[in-house]
């Protein structure tokens, strides 16, 4: 439902302006029950053309491979079965959200429903659809990962598909659209000055950098979350809690608490993407030693308590 927060213009106007029309959407369309079953049959027998199949939610295979933990209501068939039937009919298949892309939170813990993503099982290719599946248009399943997805990630993917300009080169190694996946959450993070000096928050509600102690992996996570705002002006880090890498396969099982940083000998285990370890260590210890008082004090406060110094006026 994050999609309904699409802005400038709103979702209905945006779809209309892009020549996109829902054949059916479970939350928004008028058609219900028998009308929908007829539509699905028509797509299946080829009498109705399906340009884009969007799938939300992981695909459930349990119990015992039957998929019966998730039956498509009124049809007597599992969602697993329906995805296999409809995907080859579609020009493009788009998995929306980290559950649909890689399995996501639904696969956490013991993965009680034996869920997978549409074309990935965690970080491994091959999910409900096989690793070599391509839609009629020639692309694999396009993974608009995020938990939640930014509404623009969904609408812009659909607009690019409608415009016919999205190619294999526009997808990253996990089939995510590169227009948002080539960025890191770190880009544009409002805590950048704290990061530069490794001036760290020690617990949630403090405004310092959350990488060292609070589990933030915005320097490794893909997403333009701090470049384009969420719901007006927001992002996870701006609201004072860490990036948990929700655009990535297997983010649901970090192997430690979501808001704590795993450390070895007191040093965080994870490194910023593409950063050599020795350099990171050297730069971090140097910058930490050079932390100005203002930044150090503010890092462990719940609001700015020491303002920036002002330049003295010329005499």
């Amino acid at each position, binding site marked *: 439902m994050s999609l309904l927060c699409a802005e400038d213009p709103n979702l209905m106007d945006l779809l209309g302006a892009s020549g996109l029309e829902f054949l*059916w959407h479970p*939350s*928004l369309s008028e058609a219900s029950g028998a009308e*929908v079953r007829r539509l699905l049959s028509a797509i299946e027998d080829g009498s109705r053309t399906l340009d884009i199949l969007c799938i939300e939610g992981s695909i*459930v295979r349990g119990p015992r491979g039957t998929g019966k933990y*998730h039956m498509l209501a*009124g049809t007597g068939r599992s969602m697993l079965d329906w995805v296999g039937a409809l995907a080859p009919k579609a020009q493009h298949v788009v998995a929306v959200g980290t559950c649909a892309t890689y399995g996501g939170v639904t696969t956490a*813990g013991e993965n009680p429903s034996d869920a997978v993503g549409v074309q990935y099982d965690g970080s491994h290719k091959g999910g409900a659809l096989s690793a070599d599946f391509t839609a009629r248009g020639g692309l694999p399943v396009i993974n608009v990962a995020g938990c939640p997805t930014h509404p623009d990630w969904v609408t812009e993917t659909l607009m690019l598909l409608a415009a016919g300009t999205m190619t294999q080169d526009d997808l990253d190694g996990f089939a995510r659209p590169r227009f948002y996946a080539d960025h890191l959450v770190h880009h544009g993070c409002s805590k950048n000055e704290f990061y530069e000096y490794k001036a760290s928050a020690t617990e949630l509600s403090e405004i310092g950098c959350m990488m060292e102690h609070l589990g933030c992996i915005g320097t490794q996570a893909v997403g333009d979350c701090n470049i384009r705002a969420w719901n007006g002006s927001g992002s996870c880090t701006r*609201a004072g809690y860490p990036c948990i890498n929700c655009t990535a396969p297997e983010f649901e099982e970090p192997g430690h*608490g979501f808001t704590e940083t795993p450390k070895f000998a007191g040093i965080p285990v994870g490194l910023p993407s593409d950063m050599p370890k020795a350099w990171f260590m050297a730069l971090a210890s140097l910058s930490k030693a050079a932390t100005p008082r203002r930044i150090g004090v503010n890092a462990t406060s719940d609001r700015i308590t020491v303002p920036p110094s002002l330049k003295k006026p010329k005499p």
Partner: protein
Amino acid sequence: MSETSLLVGPFNRVEGDLEIRLEIDNGRVSAAYTNSPMFRGFERMLVGKGALDALTITPRICGICSISQSMAAAHALADLAGALPTPEGARVAALLHAVENISDHLTHFNLFFMPDFARAEYAGRGWHDRAVARFTAMEGSALRAATEARLKLLHIVGLLGGKWPHTLAIQPGGVTRAVSARDKVRMAVSLRAFRTYLEQVLFGAPVEVFAGLTSVSDLEEWRSGDAGLFLEIAADLDLASAGRGTGRYMSFGAYDGPDGPAFARGLWQDGGVHSLDTNAIVEDLSHAWMLGEAAHPARGQTLPDEDMRDSAYSWCKAPRLSGQSVETGALARQVLDGHPLALDLIAERGVRARVAGRLLELARSQIWIESLLDRIDPSQRFMDHVDLPESGEGQGLVEAARGALGHWVRIEKGRIASYQIIAPTTWNFSPRDQAGAPGPVEAALVGAAVQDGEETPLSVQHIVRSFDPCMVCTVH
């Protein structure tokens, strides 16, 4: 028409997956069976994890009630620790929660419920042209206006919660982001803009006037705004008597905090308010594809029946309070808060009452949330550190848009040993229990009219959607 049966699904414009089997006798529903056809097992995923992980995982049960799940988890962990959030933290959390609930009511009325009246089957009715212009699915002018108003209201969640849904800002000790005086004036403007939408579009009058209605006869005269169009349609189609509930209502109390709950807690039955004893909750498994014994959620389990035995028909457990089903939601909250219009609506307790209860709550919530924002003091602390114990139990009882939501957690050796959730729609869309007594919506559907040749009866759609089900929360 003689005896027959119908399978209704996929049932859309409800959140998540729903299938309903109807038995029909002489043009009326004689029995209904609601199936929540998806099982994911969130309660089991949590077992073995650190307690704080519940704050990340449970909101992701649902993309529409996400903050409600955050609130229930944060309350359960605070209860486990014997702690309370700081007063300002509690106020901000309540603000975020109320924004979500208000947004959900708006989505339900405009995007889920009203579009059915734009259907071609109603052509020729005096109101149909207006319903088509305002409420045609994906196109109507009311849907656009509501979507715009809602997304701008949710800027408050963007500002304080980072994003909607799935914020991690709400913690047992308060909220992660302090509110400044500047934030307050920005949010006041957002609330003012939302009030303008409510007064110009939804009600066509000051919210205080709608909130001040005291009787059904006053309500029936309301003709302004989209609320007026609904009431005109409701009168024409006799939605007052469609889908009558049992008249037992439950609320856990909404937005509890340092100023007391906005809407009171309690149980309504036999024509009066009673104190609510949540120890009397039992989840019955007789008609759910679940194994184990009926139990209070503090001792309950989630063991799916892989064989999907024939005597069961849903993944939804059947929660009962002292052995009885109860209805939960906005109408229940307004009844238990003693609002005179809501108390008058109990006499009809059908589709119109549920939708009017939601409209009433929208008007009252606007007034309340403005005063809540006023009370937030930027000079105070918004979060305190809370140490969680190595073992213990906690419960988090809140009101989601759709009604009473409870989380029950038990911790052993610092890890989650048990986590049980009862969502509002688990109550409303529960299957039959051991005694064969139907769940609330199953009971409400009995008697619904089915026209000759109808495959997906309109009356059934109105009744089901009047409950505003969230099926993804139901089984979780």
